[in-house]
């Protein structure tokens, strides 16, 4: 049931911002990949996103080593234990950031989005809060697997805004949910199927504000290598304006590609901030 995962990651400050508030991390041994986009002045955004990533990874590792089923009580039905562990880990990350904000002055409030995947064989657990996204390319079809918790996305779902209007709206930056804002947070948890030929992308809104789905699909479809795909996506978003921090994590089943270990080495080099 173990399937090797080939992955690539690239994070860039972009062309406008003065700091990179995006964070990412991985625990490849349990198939876990996490991305977070922080917000809050005075470098608090960086703190929030790093807390989010570190907490989710730590909690998932602990839950797995305990083979814990404690989470079932507060969990949701109709999903695997791994999905419920991921849910519990994201809730914990919310608490950690929330408690950290309680200890600081109001002016230093912070929050973060999160998108996390956990691969268990062919089953992919997916948890998210905010407007960082997960996509899947299957064949030539790109599918957005997450639905943004943003004002404009909610308006579109309710049929009150067209896609064009949403793209023109000055309210694209308004989030309806984020980690660290309240004691409890509603987390979207879904499960997906990961096939051998699928490519998964996790990204911050700095990427999706600059590139269309068609542009993303073209890069993911053309690149042989996950790292190359992550590099090219970030480069394209910078060329398109780079108005925000840009982070892309690209995952592929390595069943068919050689040199998985070489790529793990590359990941480690890139993850040193």
């Amino acid at each position, binding site marked *: 049931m173990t399937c090797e995962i080939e992955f690539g990651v690239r994070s860039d400050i972009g062309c406008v911002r003065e700091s990179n508030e995006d964070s990412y991390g991985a625990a490849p041994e349990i198939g876990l990949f996490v991305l977070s986009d922080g917000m809050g002045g005075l470098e608090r955004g960086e703190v929030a996103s790093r807390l989010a990533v570190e907490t989710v990874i730590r909690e998932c590792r602990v839950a797995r080593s305990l083979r814990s089923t404690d989470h079932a009580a507060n969990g949701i*039905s*109709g999903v695997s234990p791994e999905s419920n562990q991921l849910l519990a880990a994201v809730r914990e990350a919310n608490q950690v950031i929330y408690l950290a904000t309680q200890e600081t002055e109001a002016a230093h409030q912070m929050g973060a989005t999160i998108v996390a995947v956990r691969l268990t064989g062919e089953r992919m657990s997916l948890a998210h809060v905010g407007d960082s996204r997960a996509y899947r390319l299957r064949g030539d079809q790109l599918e957005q697997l997450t639905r943004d918790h943003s004002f404009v996305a909610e308006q579109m779902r309710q*049929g009150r805004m067209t896609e064009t209007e949403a793209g*023109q709206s000055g309210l694209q930056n308004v989030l309806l949910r984020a980690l660290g804002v309240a004691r409890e947070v509603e987390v979207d948890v879904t499960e997906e199927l990961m096939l051998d030929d699928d490519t998964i992308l996790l990204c911050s809104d700095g990427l999706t504000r600059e590139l269309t789905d068609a542009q993303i699909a073209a890069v993911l479809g053309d690149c042989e290598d996950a790292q190359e795909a992550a590099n090219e996506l970030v480069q394209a978003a910078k060329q398109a304006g780079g108005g925000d921090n840009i982070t892309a994590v690209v995952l592929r089943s390595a069943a068919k590609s050689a040199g998985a270990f070489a790529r793990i080495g590359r990941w480690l080099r890139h993850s040193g901030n």
Partner: protein
Amino acid sequence: MPKLVLKFENAVLQEMPVNAKEVSIGRSPDNALVIDNPAVSHYHARVFNEEGRMMLEDFGSLNGTFVNGQRVKMVTLKPGDSVAIGKHTIVISDSRDLDGFAVGNGGAKQAAPKLNETVILDTKERRAFMQQVAAVGESSQPAPARLKLPTLVVRKGKTNQKEYALTDKLTVVGKSAMATVKLTGWFAPRAAAQINRREDQSYYVGAADRRPNVNGHPIDGPTKLSPGDLIQVAGVELEFVYRD
């Protein structure tokens, strides 16, 4: 010559000189000024010239036309008036004020949203925000509370059961160990199709190793299921129903 300047929030979407006799406004594409939003009626209002005066008439639209905050049926417009239709605003502008305006504003419109810091609404703010917006526009999609059990009934083909209750968020159709709807035919694929339950309790069928048909048509991306829909994939036919 006066102009109608169509704005959405602070972004200028379109400018239209009022040189014609009449400018029709509405959601239908055959209007002179098209506002593509569900809160706008197909033929919502018109601006026309009557003996040198610029007049606005609302065609009895569902959500109304507001001039400077007042709901109107027929009024005379003057430069500076602000006409609200749905969430859009049409500002009546004397073109003498407009030299250089379009260019400057066009630039700002591009850059503004990207530079803004992300804002998170807390629960109270969110509620107020949503209500404010809900006041405009049609009330939408009542999600029916389903107490019935969503189920796949096997109509054709070889599977290990006759019916499958869709209790999981993800249901896979195929030979794979994680498949709920187990295909038992010799040449069945590991994962033929997948069915997802979304947050709003709706169900979507998507392609896996095969592209399913729904009611005889190949799907183009994830496709929402309605009761009675027939999913055809890898030699089986499954009907989506709600069971008591």
